[in-house]
């Protein structure tokens, strides 16, 4: 089959339309941020004199440095904690296939589709009873727990694809299951783990609901949670609100720009794999 020039032109047009639609909100945020503070600019107009100083003003008055540091701290708590918990669990589910592994898999699968609204109220009470309300630790623990299902199933798919001979040879060398995991499987899981780490960091940075319920002080929230408070405080000064919002989303955009190639490959590959997980498991697993 050959694609004719018309089909190619139509394809280009579709892609162009998609790109424009995707970028317009960012462009509007950007040009609005350059208007004089305190005005209510009409949409998508370039200001007569761009007020680049809005970014500096917003950075100072909204304490953006603190907010970014808080988001980063939470991210650097959630990501290693989630990986440390998820990797061994995923290895056991994908490779060791212990008695009852199906039930555990099912429990984690429930968490994939669970709306957070279904746990937020009791979680609030629980975090309060632990004395962790309004602390980053409370938020880190809660976010780790809610990210575990995805992390476990993502890594499980990786471990399930490894040949069993890998463990056999490790066992012949006298390694127990823990050494086989640490020395052989974990290093091999590095690419899968890196993508997962970036995703977890992004989801933490952008997380909203738990951030606004578990932490009252915006300076101890995630970036997205801080945005919610931003809006209340700066809602009257649209250009500054836009400047501040851009400052809060930019660091993650940079991370994303650096890593998007691997991410988009891994995500699309995972999408092709997810619904087939069951067959793959049934075909190779000894069952329980």
């Amino acid at each position, binding site marked *: 089959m050959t694609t004719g020039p018309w089909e190619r032109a139509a394809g280009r047009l*579709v*892609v162009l339309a998609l790109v424009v639609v995707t970028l317009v909100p960012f462009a509007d945020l950007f040009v609005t941020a350059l208007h004089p503070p305190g005005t209510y600019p009409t949409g998508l107009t370039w200001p007569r004199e761009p007020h680049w100083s809005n970014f500096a003003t917003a950075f100072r008055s909204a304490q953006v440095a603190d907010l970014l540091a808080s988001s980063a701290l939470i991210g650097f708590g959630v990501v290693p904690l989630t990986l440390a918990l998820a990797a061994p669990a995923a290895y056991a589910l994908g490779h060791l296939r212990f008695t009852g592994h199906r039930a555990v898999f099912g429990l984690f699968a429930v968490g994939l589709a669970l709306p957070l609204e279904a746990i937020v*109220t009791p*979680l609030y009470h629980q975090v309060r009873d632990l004395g962790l309300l309004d602390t980053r630790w409370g938020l880190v*623990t809660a976010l780790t727990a809610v990210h575990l299902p995805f992390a476990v199933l993502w890594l499980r798919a990786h471990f399930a694809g490894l040949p069993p001979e890998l463990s056999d040879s490790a066992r012949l060398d006298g390694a127990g299951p823990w050494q086989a995991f640490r020395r052989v499987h974990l290093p091999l899981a590095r690419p899968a783990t890196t993508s997962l780490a970036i995703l977890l960091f992004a989801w933490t940075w952008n997380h909203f*609901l738990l951030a606004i319920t578990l932490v009252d002080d915006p300076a101890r929230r995630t970036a997205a949670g801080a945005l919610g408070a931003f809006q209340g405080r700066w809602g009257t000064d649209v250009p500054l609100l836009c400047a501040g919002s851009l400052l809060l989303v930019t660091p993650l*955009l940079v991370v994303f720009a650096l890593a998007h190639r691997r991410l988009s490959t891994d995500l699309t590959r995972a999408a092709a794999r997810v619904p087939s997980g069951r067959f793959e498991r049934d075909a190779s697993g000894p069952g329980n």
Partner: protein
Amino acid sequence: MSRLVGWVFVLPALAVYSVFVLRPLAATVRYSLYRWDGVGPSTWVGWDNYRAVLTDPDLYGTIGHALVLVVFFTGGPVALGLSAAAVIRRAPRGRSVRAVLLLPQAVPLAAAGIAWSLLLSSTGAVNRLLDAVGLGGVARAWLGDSSTALAAVGLIGAWALLGLCTTLLLVGAERIDPALYEAARLDGAGPWQEFRGVLLPGVRRELGVCVTVTVIAALASFDVVYVTTQGGPGNATSVPGLEVFSLAFAQREVGLASALAVVLVALVVAVVAPVLRWTR
């Protein structure tokens, strides 16, 4: 190797997950059978909270709104993604194009909400565009008008998910063996038969992921509504997530909030389970 050693590996993750996800989930189910203000003593009310959810228009209305959002969040990105896949058949080569399409995934929905509030405001870019093409008569504050606010929220969600679905579907379509298209053409298949017979089965898994992710995003939506309309005007855009939040934390009706949350979970399961079955 012992059949039990795996438990040692799973236990830490399972413990954290059980304490901070499964236990609260069980608590929500339990709370839903009580009347409780979150602080004082609670009273057993049986199914009363569920009865209220199903009979109070303010409560079941939120579920109706969530279902309308599904049409936008799922229908928009899936329809556009499939048509893009039908026309292009292969993911764009340009690296920057791919990055741009996935850009909305990297910003918080709260930020998307702020940006779209500007675009959809009475003097925003959308109205200026309408004015320019002679449709100035329909211009309005899209998020502030109770007849359009819900659709406007749906549009924002569709924008956020469009790139993800398109990318997934395009990559899926790329994997289809070109020989299948050729065979279809030789059999005299038109574009529609080609779409139904070749493309749709070829991207079934990706389609399943898109539908699942977008349906959950729509039913459990919270961020966008919180930032753009707070459920208003009136309660034109109230959704279950926002209602659970305000019932539990502002109105101190924990029992009612929990019942609504349980209904929401049931709804997610009812919609997602058949989709997953179909794509398997």
